């Protein structure tokens, strides 16, 4: 039974007609995200990685943060930055203005959570260095 494709007059085969048919048999251009880890280029602005030893608690980062997402809190006598990840816009102005490069960017972007309190990153909380590990 021929698949009758009797269309009325059509001069050259329209590009859409050919594209549709060819895509039918081509592999779909979908990356299977949750099952295949997404490859993230260098220099991606993911979650901050804060190194407490280099920090001299000068407070420059919280002063320069455009979204005022960094709060200085008292941690055993010294003032340390507390990152509010729900307010942060990941622009990394803090990393630029930090004199001791205590704040580095990481390639970790899966920050979604169902409870808001986990989005406040305290300085003394050991944050995994490197990238891509779950919290």
């Amino acid at each position, binding site marked *: 039974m021929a698949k009758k494709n009797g269309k009325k007059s059509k001069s050259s085969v329209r590009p859409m007609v050919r594209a549709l048919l060819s895509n039918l048999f081509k592999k*779909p*251009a*979908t*990356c*299977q*995200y*949750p099952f295949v880890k*997404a490859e993230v280029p260098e220099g991606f602005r993911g979650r901050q990685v804060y190194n407490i030893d280099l920090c001299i608690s000068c407070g420059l980062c919280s002063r320069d943060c*455009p*979204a*005022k997402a960094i709060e200085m809190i008292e941690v055993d006598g010294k003032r340390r930055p507390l990152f*509010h*990840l*729900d*307010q*942060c*816009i*990941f*622009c990394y102005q803090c990393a630029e203005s930090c004199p001791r490069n205590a704040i580095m960017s990481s390639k970790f*972007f*899966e*920050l*979604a*959570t*169902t409870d*808001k309190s986990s*989005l406040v990153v305290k300085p003394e909380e050991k944050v995994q260095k490197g990238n891509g590990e779950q919290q």
Partner: protein
Amino acid sequence: MSKLATWARLKSPWVLHFNSGACNGCDIELVALLTPKYDVERFGIKLEPSPRHADVLLVTGSVTQQCAERLKRIYDQMPEPKFVVAIGACACSGGIFRGNYDVLGGVDKVIPVNAYIPGCPPKPEAIIDGVVKLLNSLKPEKPSKEEKKK
């Protein structure tokens, strides 16, 4: 019977998108989910036109004074079991516009929010990860049955 209902609810979460005053950076990442590269239809997620059809309300943008009442009305129009996902720093807490005179700052000031996805804008993969985490958070209903059996 309720196991089947939960399975169906997890497998076909219909989505409604409302932009309550965003810079549409998060909106274009959200619409990018429907396109071939990310294609959330694999999980059965479909963008629905009317609040009556939707289960999950994806809200982007720091809620402005004018949008607040509209957001509340849309939330009320959605049938039960409904969930709300706040996408982007603006929806989670008002982001860079927090404190402005016309901005309420955060969706949870108007309607209860089930999942937060920070980022400005979050990568499409991060939004998928957020929705998957929201759906997983509904699953524990099953183990609670095992406790009942014990």
